[in-house]
């Protein structure tokens, strides 16, 4: 038996441009939070604590996308301070809903929202963390699934691969025994191209999936676009369907640009 007392791994939570929802998922894990806090030293998590410990950190969770020069520099420093860097949510993994600016003139956006545009400094693009620094794991979802987050933290601590499937929402629907709403009711559903993780939530509530978990591992977006056309959707509607919370994820980006050109 080692005589050394093992140091608790240190975790940090950082936020860039985002809604706070993904880091809130950790606080929403009401049944697990105190055990997580028992296994880890929560070194930096400003939303939850005034104790702001300096790096290096063993596990770093990053929420939000890069939209300012300041954050582009900050993420480099965060990477340097982090042994394992995990990005959480659609903003951090795909640029988020704010990436809709990427197809527009951001200066015009500033003028629409702010009366004194010169006070606002922002980048033309909203980009995911992996476009700036190497990322060890990307956890999808808008918001993330808290059970997947706990699994990911547990796996990282144990040094094993996390059980986070990359297949589509369709698999979850089948497993739940849902009747396919796209086939049976003609409801437009992004489930075939969207990564699982939500538990096929929307089809269970009689509505089509709107793709908040982003593209599955190898999505056939062209086939889905054709299916949406059969259901009577025009190209503009198809473009919008791919252009939401994960719009800048390359597979969805390609699909939306194709339907925009058509």
């Amino acid at each position: 038996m080692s005589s050394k007392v093992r140091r608790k791994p240190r975790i940090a939570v950082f936020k860039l441009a985002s809604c706070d929802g993904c880091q809130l998922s950790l606080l929403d894990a009401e049944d697990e939070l105190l055990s997580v806090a028992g296994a880890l030293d929560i070194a930096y998590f400003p939303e939850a604590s005034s104790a702001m410990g300096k790096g290096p950190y063993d596990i770093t969770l990053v929420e939000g996308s890069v939209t300012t020069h300041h954050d582009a520099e900050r993420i480099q420093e965060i990477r340097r301070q982090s042994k394992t860097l995990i990005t959480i949510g659609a903003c951090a993994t795909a640029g988020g809903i704010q990436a809709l600016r990427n197809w527009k003139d951001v200066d015009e956006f500033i003028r629409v929202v702010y009366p004194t545009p010169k006070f606002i400094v922002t980048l033309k693009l909203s980009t995911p963390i992996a476009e700036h620094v190497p990322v060890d794991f990307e956890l999808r979802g808008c918001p993330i699934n808290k059970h997947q987050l706990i699994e990911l933290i547990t796996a990282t601590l144990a040094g094993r691969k996390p059980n986070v499937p990359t297949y589509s929402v369709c698999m979850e629907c089948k497993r739940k025994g849902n009747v396919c709403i796209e086939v049976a009711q003609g409801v437009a559903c992004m489930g075939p191209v969207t990564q699982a993780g939500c538990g096929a939530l929307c089809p269970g509530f009689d509505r089509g999936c709107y793709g908040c978990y982003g593209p599955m591992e190898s999505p056939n977006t062209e086939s889905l676009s054709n299916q949406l056309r059969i259901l009577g959707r025009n190209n503009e509607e198809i473009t919008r369907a791919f252009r939401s919370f994960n719009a800048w994820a390359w597979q969805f980006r390609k699909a939306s640009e194709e339907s925009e050109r058509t």
Partner: protein
Amino acid sequence: MSKQPARTIKVDVLARVEGEGGLYVKLKGDQVQDVKLKIYEPPRFFEAFLRGRHFSEVPDIVARICGICPVAYQMSAVHAIEDALGVKVDGQLRALRRLLYCGEWIESHTLHVYMLHAPDFLGYQDAIQMAKEHPAVVQRALQLKKAGNQIVTLLGGREIHPINVRVGGFYKVPSRSEFAALAERLKWARDAALKTVRFVATLTFPDFERDYVFVALRQPEGHPFNEYPFNEGRLFSNGGLDIPIGEYEANFAEEHVQHSNALRSVLKPHGVYLVGPLARYSLNFDRLSPLAQEAARDAGLGPVCRNPFKSIIVRSVETVYACDEALRIIEQYERPEKAAFEIHPRAATGYGCTEAPRGILYHRYRLDEEGAVLEAKIVPPTSQNLRIIEQDLGQFVPKFLNLPEADLRWQCEQAVRNYDPCISCATHCLRVEIDRG
């Protein structure tokens, strides 16, 4: 004349608030020269990219402004769009929306009361540290918060960014039997909320009161629903304001300052005003349930509360109310025949204003004949409270100048947290700095 010593109080990253901001206070002697609530959370331009989206997409998009109060955004949006399209959602669907809002208030208020605000009063860095010495209190907090989240999950599919809200109603409505387990849970929650009020009433509060202009929703006398405000009402103030929500922009202005990526609101011509629990409570005490009124009285609160530090008691009282109201709605629930009213697009403008946990949240949408958004305007509660927070600090700091630097900074941060500011919302804006020269 002797030169006055100058100092600065600075907090670069405000902790235990939602989003990114800081605080800067500049002092010369015992005079506050400048207070700035700095909002460096990056702007996300929701009002700009909503243009061109179909109205049916709006509730899902605006939810993403805030992970803590997505229901509030969805509610203000659906009410505004329904106003434009001439639809009035009533009956059990109206009641279900109120129930959903109860869930969000319980979850958001409990998060703030126990995890963000209580550590200030008790001298802890966070709730996890607090849990080591008060394990039963923190456990109660987590389970009470969970009860709120369970309402949102049952009705909305998930606690953050619920998927079941649509213009006209819901995608799917639960059966009466689905509420059975939740009702049992809520009876426990109501009891836990009462214990919460008793717990926060024992905290020590700075002697600090101000003569605020409160603004909140309120149903006019004689309205069929004589209820504490969530989704509806007229805009009221203790200064004589009494207007329909459609006249919000004629009565309130937004200003833009360099140190904030969030616009800030003022009430014309009265200037700075306060929204949120203190305002809601002080303007609607008579509309609370008897149980919530009794809890407030037992905690030593009168029908008006002007001490912002006591907002923690008011939030706890509102949590009692939300549990009570949720139980009332569930008891009277009968599954409606349709999950949503039929909607037909038309070119029109609509207004929505609902009571987010942090105060009134105003939306306006202009739609074209196909239902696409031409123009969107969103004013979150935190933008409206930014000026009052700065004013509070300006008046608060001179009274506590003899405190050691670290304690003064702590008190300043606490004074900001009185408002449970949501910076993610406000920038769709906090750092504390105290400058003494």
